[in-house]
């Protein structure tokens, strides 16, 4: 009897498991990017970039892979619909495969829709099983998501999905844009502190001419950019630079490349990046420093007379990567001048960025979470309503810098020439 039962169970397991509701891989069409834009009458323009498996195989296989060289590895389809769910169904009316969203890498939101509010778009994303919190969220800077997706021509990666993942993985190399997951975007929309943020993506339209988005801080030689002003002459016209700030579900502001670095310093996620500063002793020359956080910023908060008081202590470490003047900044006496200059620049930039965040009422660095420690219960903190008090919060910033290394040169000898 036991043998018969075991045999029946084994056969049932072999014959039925995994077959219910399954799809063969050549019956499925994988979406890798979704763009959402505002359309008239409350509708949405939803743009899908779908992977073309045969072309992808060719790319991956190289010459011997049997692929079709020069063919696009993906196709783009735009649909106007009242919701993402209807758009997905309409997509199936055109594509002879079952659309599958479980491999979506990024959702790009048009700026107009972002400013109108994205609650109705983002909410369903976390409810539907095919989406994950580990998708990235981008906002199209001053343009539509459709245009960004259609214009995007990665120059090294031929697969758009790899381009997105590569860009996000290398976000820490410069600190010019954050790595914003859907999870990070959605959580502050519901939590009692913090604000959603997204990566700004846009098209370079300057024709190679630099159009900085803001003036330089005293002593600094690095320009601040948004995508439209980056002096790019060729290559992929689509750039990731800056951060979109939200209050609730509405976009309320933008951080430039430099402000984004400050925001990442506050969250402790700034990994490294070059900073070009004015030479303290020869102002016509510049010094390049490779900066990184010496430790996570120490942030403490109190409440005084109903106002949050936030003390921020940032410690940076630097490595000299270029000295154009020939001044011997490797020596400790000169070294200190550089450290003081860097600290002053970063402090001013941090204060400016925080002031801007307070002005637009958005707290992407989640400074509010430090205030939570002042309360015993969840109800007390909710009643305090940090969001409404954030604009009037007193924020004290202290920055110290330590030049740890001087690159592969320990001394700068003067360039020989006519006296």
């Amino acid at each position, binding site marked *: 009897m036991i043998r018969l039962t075991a045999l029946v169970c084994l056969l049932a397991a072999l014959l039925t498991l995994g077959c219910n*509701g399954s799809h063969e891989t050549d019956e499925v069409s994988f979406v890798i990017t979704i763009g959402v834009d505002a359309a008239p009458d409350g509708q949405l323009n939803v743009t899908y970039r779908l992977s073309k498996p045969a072309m992808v195989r060719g790319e991956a296989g190289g010459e011997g892979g049997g692929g079709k060289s020069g063919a696009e590895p993906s196709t783009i389809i735009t649909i106007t619909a009242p919701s993402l769910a209807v758009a997905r169904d309409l997509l199936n009316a055109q594509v002879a495969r079952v659309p599958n969203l479980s491999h979506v890498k990024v959702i790009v939101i048009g700026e107009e829709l972002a400013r109108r509010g994205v609650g109705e778009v983002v909410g369903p994303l976390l409810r539907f*099983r095919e989406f994950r919190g580990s998708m990235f969220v981008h906002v199209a800077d001053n343009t539509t998501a459709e245009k960004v997706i259609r214009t995007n021509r990665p120059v090294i990666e031929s697969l758009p999905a790899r381009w997105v993942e590569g860009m996000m993985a290398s976000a820490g190399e410069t600190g010019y844009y954050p790595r914003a997951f859907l999870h990070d975007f959605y959580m502050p929309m519901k939590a009692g502190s913090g604000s959603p943020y997204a990566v700004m993506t846009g098209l370079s339209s300057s024709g190679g001419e630099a159009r900085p988005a803001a003036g330089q801080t005293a002593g600094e030689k690095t320009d601040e950019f948004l995508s439209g002003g980056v002096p790019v002459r060729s290559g992929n016209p689509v750039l990731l630079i800056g951060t979109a700030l939200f209050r609730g579900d509405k976009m309320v502001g933008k951080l430039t490349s430099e402000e984004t670095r400050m925001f990442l310093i506050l969250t402790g996620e700034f990994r490294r990046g070059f900073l070009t500063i004015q030479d303290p002793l020869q102002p016509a020359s510049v010094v390049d420093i490779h900066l990184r956080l010496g430790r996570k910023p120490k942030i403490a908060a109190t409440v005084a007379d109903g106002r949050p008081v936030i003390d921020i202590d940032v410690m940076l470490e630097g490595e000299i990567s270029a000295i154009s003047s020939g001044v011997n900044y490797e020596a400790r006496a000169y070294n200190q001048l550089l450290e003081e200059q860097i600290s002053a620049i970063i402090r001013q930039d941090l204060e400016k960025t925080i002031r801007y965040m307070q002005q637009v009422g958005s707290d992407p660095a989640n400074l509010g*979470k430090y205030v939570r420690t002042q309360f015993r*219960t969840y109800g007390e903190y909710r009643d305090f309503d940090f969001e409404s008090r954030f604009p009037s919060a007193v924020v004290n910033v202290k920055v110290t810098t330590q030049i740890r290394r001087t690159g592969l040169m320990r001394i700068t000898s003067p360039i020989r020439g006519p006296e």
Partner: protein
Amino acid sequence: MSYQPGRMGIAEGIGLTFMVMLPRVFLTSPADTIAAIRNIAWLAPLLNWLIALPMFYLLAWVMARHRGDLYAVSERLLGRAGAWLLAIFYATLFILDAAALLRQFAENTLLTALPATEFRIVIFWYILFAVVLVYFGIEGIARACYLLMPFVVGGVAAVILLLTPFYDAYHLVPWQGTGLLSAFQRGLALVGINIGGLLLFVLAPQFQSPATLRTALVYGGGLSAVLRTLVILCFILAFGVAQGMEKTLPFFEMSRLVYLSRYIQRIEALFIVLWVITGLLAIAINLYAALQLIARPLNLPSLRPLVPVIAIVIVNIAVIPPDLNTVVEAGNNLDPLLSAGMIGGPLLLAVAEFVKRRRKRP
């Protein structure tokens, strides 16, 4: 199959206790607890375990003074009618618990892994495998539980470790949540989720001595309580309170969020197997406990004829709620009843033992 299940030791006891107390952590329970007591929700599993443990010790104390299983001891202390009532009460609890687990695991399988499959097919396979497990006997189930324990612990630990980049310790403050009193009340309300541990007393003669029972309960139940605590703690660390209480399946959401690199992501499918197996074993253990508690008062020579009957009863109860939210709500409504069983039964037997002893004194 006789209702005398054979000889078991500490390992089998630990396996059974661990597996029957754990499965709710894979369901909506953590999100419910967060909704109830907010930031301090992680403390609730530890509290309910600390409340349940003295009850188990109390029962072990009573059992140490008599020979036999829970029914035999109840008969001696409460009389035949009292023992019948107690056995039927506990059998009902185990049946209801099995039905609640069956429906929730079936629904969650549809929700996560097999969205296009018919509900009837999923629930059929769940109960069929529970029935097959019970046919093989509790010894086999207990050993399977013990063998699977490292994989379950390892799987949960893997998800917890892989999510480290998403943790933010500030999600735990304000640390008192809705207050210490409400945390204690929640811990008390959920004490019933440990009721599966009573199975060891139902099978007491097979566990050699009350010391074996106590050891199995402390280690099996303790490990389960620690894992439940860690899962809720890490879920809050990763999702925060406001988002955390929205989720239907916290553990599944945790595994879905894992993203270390383009190569280590989308790994939730690996962990679905983990909680499906845990759920299957827990349903089988509850089914076995109910059968044992029905067979003993009736003095049946074998459990086997009852297996399909009780399984069909469990399926019929499981399909009564019209939707998943009602199932979760019904599960929550079952908690006070389970807690009453967890606290009331041991207390009643301890009081009866105490009174009987006093009467015996000259």
